[in-house]
């Protein structure tokens, strides 16, 4: 695992998130559930808790949009870059964007939202890309079965190095 330069991290344990633009590929309820499950992977192994809000500015602002979408990193259409996220910090820190030119699913078909969201939230919490091919934070997308999915060991060690573990060992 790796951390960003200077090891930025959130200095609180309750982190809010807000989804401002949903994908039409899934129902809003399905997106809310998948995003919640992705955050749960991290709250299972760290003291962090995540709360969805529906108005105002959250710590982590989330949107689905294609092409140019308000930052300096426009998406590139179908394939290629699937999503990106900022490292922790004030303002746009932690903000997470999904390319809505992809087809988002909850299955093996096209791009699985839970897996990509969990990867991006790793960045939003301070994890950099990992060279471990089995890690969630490996840069390229590869589907794995998401039934009962847990954070791989490499990623768990990486996030616990920043925030500690939920259950002291």
């Amino acid at each position: 695992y790796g951390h960003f330069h200077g090891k930025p991290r959130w200095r609180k344990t309750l982190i809010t998130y807000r989804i401002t633009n949903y994908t039409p590929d899934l129902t809003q309820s399905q997106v809310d559930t998948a995003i919640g499950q992705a955050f749960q992977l991290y709250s299972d192994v760290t003291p962090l808790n995540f709360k969805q809000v529906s108005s105002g500015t959250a710590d982590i602002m989330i949107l689905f949009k294609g092409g140019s979408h308000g930052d300096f990193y426009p998406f590139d259409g179908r394939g290629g870059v699937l999503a990106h996220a900022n490292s922790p910090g004030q303002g746009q820190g932690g903000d997470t964007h999904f390319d809505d030119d992809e087809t988002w699913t909850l299955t093996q078909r096209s791009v699985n939202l839970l897996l990509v969201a969990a990867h991006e939230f790793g960045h939003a919490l301070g994890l950099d890309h990992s060279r471990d091919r089995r890690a969630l934070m490996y840069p390229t997308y590869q589907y794995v079965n998401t039934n009962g999915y847990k954070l791989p060991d490499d990623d768990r060690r990486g996030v616990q190095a920043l925030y500690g573990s939920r259950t002291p060992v």
Partner: protein
Amino acid sequence: APTIAPTVSPEEQDLAEAYLSNFYGDVGVTNSSVRRLAKSSFNLDLQAMQAFFGLEVTGVLNNETVEVMKAPRCGVSDISR
């Protein structure tokens, strides 16, 4: 003198330059006065990319490296910010 036939297409070369520019550095400079520097940067960035993904580190673009570059991926740089 004998020449080595390129193993990748011009389109794949363009893809590689864009990929390395996005995720490994600042390749893509076209000003002729710094073209040599850019070429050197391309080779170095390519080596860094090949090392990151556990590929054979040659600094030369080949089909195996291009295949990795074509894979869907996260938009965050592989070089720590």
